[in-house]
């Protein structure tokens, strides 16, 4: 199985964390908060579209909302294969990181 890209992984994690009401704006906020720099909306749409095509996320359209100029929003949630992919990537990450010494959250220790 092909691994996810970093943006895809982050976007999916953000959707999972948000649970209800995960649409582009909060996802962007979440990702920006966690990564520490501002993501553009475009940078969120692209992985979202790609994930939709891959079947990792599914989306639903809400009713039109006034504050959005009478437009709906598209709310995302993870599919089963999406969740599996996340689990897999976590396993891969863990095994990649195991045995790595000296690179810690506090900095390079060697």
């Amino acid at each position, binding site marked *: 199985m092909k691994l996810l890209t970093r943006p895809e992984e982050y976007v999916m994690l953000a959707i999972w964390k948000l649970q209800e009401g995960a*649409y*582009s*704006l909060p996802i962007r906020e979440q990702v920006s908060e966690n990564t520490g720099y501002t993501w*553009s*909306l*475009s*940078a969120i*749409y*692209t992985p979202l*579209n790609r994930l939709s095509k891959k079947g990792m996320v599914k989306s639903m*359209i809400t009713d039109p*909302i006034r*504050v*959005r*100029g009478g*437009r*709906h*929003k*598209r709310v995302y949630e993870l599919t089963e294969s999406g969740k599996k992919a996340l689990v897999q990537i976590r396993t891969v990450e863990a095994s990649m990181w195991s045995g790595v010494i000296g690179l810690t959250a506090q900095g390079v220790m060697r």
Partner: protein
Amino acid sequence: MNDSKHNNPPRISAYFLKWLVADHFDTPSGDFEEYFHEISEEYGSRRARWWYRGQVLRLIPDQLYEKVFWGLVMLRSYFQVGARNLAKNKVAASINIVGLSAAVGSAIALLLFVVVLNDYDQFHENRDQLYLVGQTFESELSKPDVLLRYGTSPLPLGPILAADYPQIKRSARFSTTAAMVRSDGNAFRERVSFADPDFFEMLTFPISQGDARLEDPGSVVISSEMAEKYFQDESPLGQEVLLTFENGNEEYLIVGAVAEEFPQTASLSFDFLVGSEKRLALGLESMFDWGASTDATFLQIERPEDVPLLEAELNRYVPLVNEAGGDVQIQSLFLDSISDPGFFSGWLIKDRAMEAPRPVESGMFGILALLMLMVSCFNYITISLGSAARRLKEIGIRKTTGAEKNQLVVQFLTENLLVCFIAMVGGILFAFAAAIPFMNSMVVLDIPSGYLAEPFFWQILIGLLAFVGIISGSYPAFYISSFQPVEILRGSRKLGEKKGLTRALTTVQFVLTIITITFATFAGTLDEKLIADDWGYDPDPLLVLPVYNEVHFAEMRNEALQQPFVSKVSGTYHHIGESAGGATVMVDAVEMGAVYFSVGPEYLETMGARVSEGRLFGDGYGADDSTSVVVNRTFADQHEWEFPIGQHLTIAGQSFAVIGVVEDFILTPLSGKQEPVVLGVSDVSNFNTMVVRVEDAKLEQTILALRTFWEAEFPEVDFEYYSQTAAYGAESFEGLGMFMRIVGVFALLISSMGLFGMASQKVALRIKEVGIRKTMGASAAHIIFVVNREFLVMLGVATLIATPLCWIAFSNTLLQFTTVDIPNSSTPYIVANVIVFLVAALSLSLQSRKLVRLAPADALRID
């Protein structure tokens, strides 16, 4: 920041965003707007607007990629659906494609024809700066106020103008005469032309060998054709040729240069070209004789703004010309542009050295091409509308599943373009594999293959594709795609509900068909109209042979007279149909122009000219009749002679006695009879043509005998002959007439296919109705009447519209531009209407038969 405008996202960016993300527009726009308001509240709208713009900018690369990607996917889908539809509606599709191909092919051929007609002599690189000097005369005949424009000009004018006016960069005169040319035992009568040294600087006639030096009196420039004819494999350069002019003067010249092959669009060209000064050898006294004229005077004027000025100045030379005692007083001099001879006026200039555009032919072919395209477009529109009826469900379902109107429009336009593209390819194949070779084989005109490489040709093609595709495709596309899905799927929407509109369309189709066929019939029978039934002499069976010298003539005459079926033989210099001269004839101190024929003594008798009064020339050569002339009836009538015989007239200072009057005869196949003609006797040494009167049906035998004799006696010269009727009769127009008739048949074919397709669709829509009528007891006759009534009414209306339209068009435009009086006869109109009626009746009756034989149960069964 309370300004309400500023509380909204920036408008241009918003539109751009909408375009960018059109397919899934709502979500991103919503996101953008929501966040815009958040920022706006927190940081003010100014910052929010900038944020908005920035975000839109960042969207571009990804979204553009998506757009192109999905665009291509959709395009593939459009083509797929289109191709499947074509495969499904094979009848409609093949009618469309075949009809359009035929129309496009014919249109290409016709348009190329028009292009060639108007492209004569446009290959000269300096054409924009080149002008011909022309002169005007008062018309002696019928219309006294009208000035006749001539392309000829006074001989000394060119060099004098160039010397007097610095605005004129160069000038060159050009004239052509005939002379015997001998070299190495070859002897032929050829065109010999005279030109000033600047001729090659001004006009683009590239030299392939040698060096063209017209200022060298001992040198001659020859065409590549002549080089081949006289010298075959030898190098022509340095060869000696002997020119014998008609007055007996001889000139030995050395071939100094050979010109490249002339373009097919060269109407002015030369075979043997020598310097202008050589005209003195022709008996011209001085090159500054204002009474003499030249075939053409070319001026090169670099600045177009100088042209009107120079044209005004030209008239200062008019008195000079007239004082010199020219035969006829000229009224004015004018300049005539080579690049722009005037589409409607150029052809009126008589004796123009270069071919002028021909508005009648161009107009006729152009209109015909356009008409055929229009007819096939209308066929296409009605047929596509009809076949779309079967696709109503498809449209409804596509709409409900989210297809937008413009997607459907694109879908239908793509299908149209697909059909048109196939038709275009078919049309090109048709044009180049069939139509153009056919036209060329008919010797109508050679279409140079070089046009294929010209960008304008492809521009025409792409223009045609767009024209046909968009004209024929857009109406069905927009009409069909605007249906409401609910109406379609509920079944309340049936195509053809707009009765008025479809009726109008059908009527227009009928009108166009009638016009096209009228036009084609008119053009196709033009040859018959142009050629008078009575030529004024007996052209059949008459053999015409070129002879190149006295020996040829004497020996061939003897041989011919020994043939059992030959009754009369004569030599001549001018020959009716082929050549004629002009003369200024003075009778009782009144000068008048006339056509002059210099003929052999027995010529008129051999030609079968009909004597009206007096006698023809005697049998004896020369002596008796050297001061006699025969005139035609028109000439005698113009001078109001009660007793023409014995009247005297003066030509070029020499007095002649009229010994006979012949009935008017046609000069060329296209000219009228009413021209004054004077015939005088030519010396046997000037004969270039021999006419032989052969007894009917023995033509082939006689030709064979003469050919055998010629080939034994004069092996160095090819035997040539033609029959008078073949050369100047309807047969000579057979090519053109045949071509027009074939185009007419094509137009008919295209329109009848359209009628057939339309009839079948109309009938298909009425199957249920007919089923009900049948169960209610309607008779076959009644059903045929009911179904066809509508068509008959439309056909009647179309006839009433089309016929007067054609009549007005013909009599007000086309017929105004011909020199020949063409009767606006009713035949084409009747033919066209009858043909259209028959074709419509045939296709309707085929369809009606289907209805009459229909079992009502089949029609009414719910499927």
